[in-house]
């Protein structure tokens, strides 16, 4: 650990060069921009910047690209909170409470919590990466298909907490999401399913356009149907900075939420192939279960935004762990960064951290400073950002539709994604009208493909034996955790009821 701190101090001193600091801030703000614009995630941001960084010193280039990655985590929440369109897939969770807060007139506060939590999540993530990055990476690598399948299954069992007022409707959304996740090529043999003659469906239903439609376009349709002049504008008066800052009590409530969210997010982010989106959903669902105010999450409370943002930023930073320690990308964006390393003539792999220690530690050090720079800049801009919700609905709605369409197109540069937004928007609108919650559909659409892939891989690993989930120690541990996770609240409830009956008697 002392060695790690020593290396971190060397990294910090490397970072004190004004040009590196400037590029770190620039990368962070570019990340915020691409994060806030629907459809353009960190992967797109890094890919756009990669050719420009070719002429830079590799350390500065990597610091800049890393800043784009975590800057994206800050920015993703902005459009999710203000207009209910997640800027990136991980921000779909932020939209649940963030937009609800916005509708209540607390857009400024939601943004403040979003940036603060991203910052805290980033800091905790960077600390964990410094102190136990290599150890955790090695544990993470022991996660095979059975363990991943069980992690996803535990997350799926928690869907019960977001099923809404009529649980059957929530289950319908879950089943539909799982069924839609099977559209396209199946994960193991690439055999096509449910294509209906549409070749574009081979890649499956794209997640981000589906999210944009379900959350963003559906809201526009609902506001227009209810009467664009009848529905009150979200915010009419100018926002004062004081109103954006959460109360003392809210700050207190957020501390454990940040700690839990960031730790869970960091660890899931380290698992190869998981990424920030799964981490964010997982942390949100766990928080909903363990938090005292969990039942209120989804209706617009700061905890919902805090856990999502802390988890996604920590997960983004966590994904650097396997990349530095073993040369394995933890997410799509770190895969682009690995490509960058090759471009600069560096060899990613298990020896990267040893051969390029100074460079790697400069990047880790930049995460502390970069997160601080981005958080300060974002918090300063809150009044400017929240002025978006002061735009009357009559103008804001067409802008949202335009942003939905161009954002969806930007994901894969495909016209087909625009049709997905449209269809998802109309389905989302009917869901809102009939009272079907959208979150279980989004969650099962996201996790369904991975669940099938890991589940089937696990059975193959076990030579066809379904007991593979119980014979591996880690997998068994997750199964036991999942069972406890499900049964403890039920047992506690039964005990509480018995106590109340006894007291009455």
């Amino acid at each position: 650990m002392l060695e790690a701190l020593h290396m971190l101090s060397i990294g910090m001193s490397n970072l004190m060069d004004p040009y590196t600091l400037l590029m770190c801030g620039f990368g962070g703000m570019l990340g915020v921009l691409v994060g806030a614009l629907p459809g353009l995630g960190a992967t797109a941001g890094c890919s756009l910047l990669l050719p420009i960084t070719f002429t830079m010193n590799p350390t500065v280039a990597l610091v800049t690209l890393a800043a784009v990655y975590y800057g994206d985590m800050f920015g993703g929440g902005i459009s999710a909170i203000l207009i209910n369109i997640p800027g990136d897939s991980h921000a779909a969770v932020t939209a649940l409470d963030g937009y609800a807060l916005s509708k209540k007139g607390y857009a400024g506060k939601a943004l403040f919590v979003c940036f603060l939590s991203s910052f805290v999540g980033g800091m905790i993530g960077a600390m964990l990466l410094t102190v136990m990055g290599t150890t955790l990476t090695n544990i993470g690598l022991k996660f095979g298909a059975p363990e991943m399948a069980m992690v996803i299954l535990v997350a799926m069992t928690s869907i019960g907490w977001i099923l809404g007022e009529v649980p059957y409707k929530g289950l319908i959304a879950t089943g539909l999401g799982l069924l839609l996740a099977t559209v396209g090529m199946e994960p193991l043999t690439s055999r096509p399913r449910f294509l209906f003659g549409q070749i574009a469906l081979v890649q499956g239903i794209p997640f981000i356009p589906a999210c944009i439609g379900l959350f963003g376009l559906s809201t526009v349709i609902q506001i227009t149907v209810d009467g664009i002049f009848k529905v009150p504008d979200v915010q009419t008066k100018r926002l004062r900075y004081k109103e954006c800052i959460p109360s003392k009590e809210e700050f207190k409530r957020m501390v454990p939420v940040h700690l839990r969210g960031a730790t869970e997010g960091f660890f899931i982010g380290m698992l190869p192939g998981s990424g920030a989106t799964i981490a964010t959903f997982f942390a949100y669902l766990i928080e909903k279960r363990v938090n005292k105010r969990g039942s209120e999450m989804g209706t617009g409370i700061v905890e919902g935004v805090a856990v999502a943002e802390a988890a996604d930023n920590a997960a983004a930073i966590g994904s650097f762990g396997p990349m530095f320690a073993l040369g394995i990308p933890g997410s799509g964006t770190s895969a682009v960064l690995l490509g960058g390393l090759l471009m600069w003539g560096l060899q990613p792999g298990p020896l990267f951290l040893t051969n390029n220690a100074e460079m790697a530690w400069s990047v880790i050090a930049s995460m502390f400073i970069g997160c601080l720079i981005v958080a300060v800049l974002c918090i300063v801009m809150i009044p400017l950002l929240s002025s978006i919700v002061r735009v009357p609905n009559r103008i804001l709605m067409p802008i949202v539709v335009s942003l939905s369409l161009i954002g969806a197109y930007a994901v894969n540069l495909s016209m087909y994604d625009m049709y997905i937004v449209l269809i998802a928007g109309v389905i989302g609108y009917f869901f809102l009208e009939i009272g079907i919650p959208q979150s279980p559909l989004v969650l099962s659409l996201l996790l369904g493909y991975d669940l099938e892939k890991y589940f089937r891989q696990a059975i193959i690993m076990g030579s066809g034996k379904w007991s593979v989930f119980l014979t591996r120690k880690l997998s068994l541990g997750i199964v036991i955790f999942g069972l406890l996770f499900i049964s403890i609240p039920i047992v506690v409830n039964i005990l509480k009821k018995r106590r109340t009956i006894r007291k009455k008697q």
Partner: protein
Amino acid sequence: MKKRYVYKMTDLGLSVFMALVAGYGIISGIRFGILSGGRPGTGFQPVFAGLILFISSVCLFIKTIRDGKKKIDELQADAEKQKKHEEQQRLREEDAAKNRRDTETWLGKAAAKLIPQAKLRWALIYLVGIWIIIFIIDKLGMYVGLWLMNFLFLKFISKYSWWQSLLIASAIAASFYLVFSLTLGINVPSFLNSLR
């Protein structure tokens, strides 16, 4: 007193529709093959998802039927509640109308003649309208399509004047061009390319 039954028709319709979708998923899954050599096959997940969907649809159907068996006095109480709610709604709308412009639009009135239910009508207007816009985007370019959509939205739904609609739509299209094409260099379908 004779019992009357009131069912939430949307919930009944939803459960029947979803059960049919689930049935399709299950049958397709069986055709794909649930198991192959004792291992989950291509059809495993569709059958699993279809079963969740089917069971929850049946449960919703049964729940809706059970909830629908209300006695007539409950119905009367509901009717009174509804009347009160409507009265409150009317007063609120009158109040809002003092400060805001008429909510009925030319587009809404015209479509009302074709499809009676307001919500379904608007959803269809969106579906068809944006479908046409996407077609236009494909043929004439992104910014021309978005400009046209914004102009029509601002004129016929937001009820701005011709000039205001023209100016705002142009400003939106220009700012999108500035951010997406000039700053970020995203290659969107363009009008010039469509001419070639």
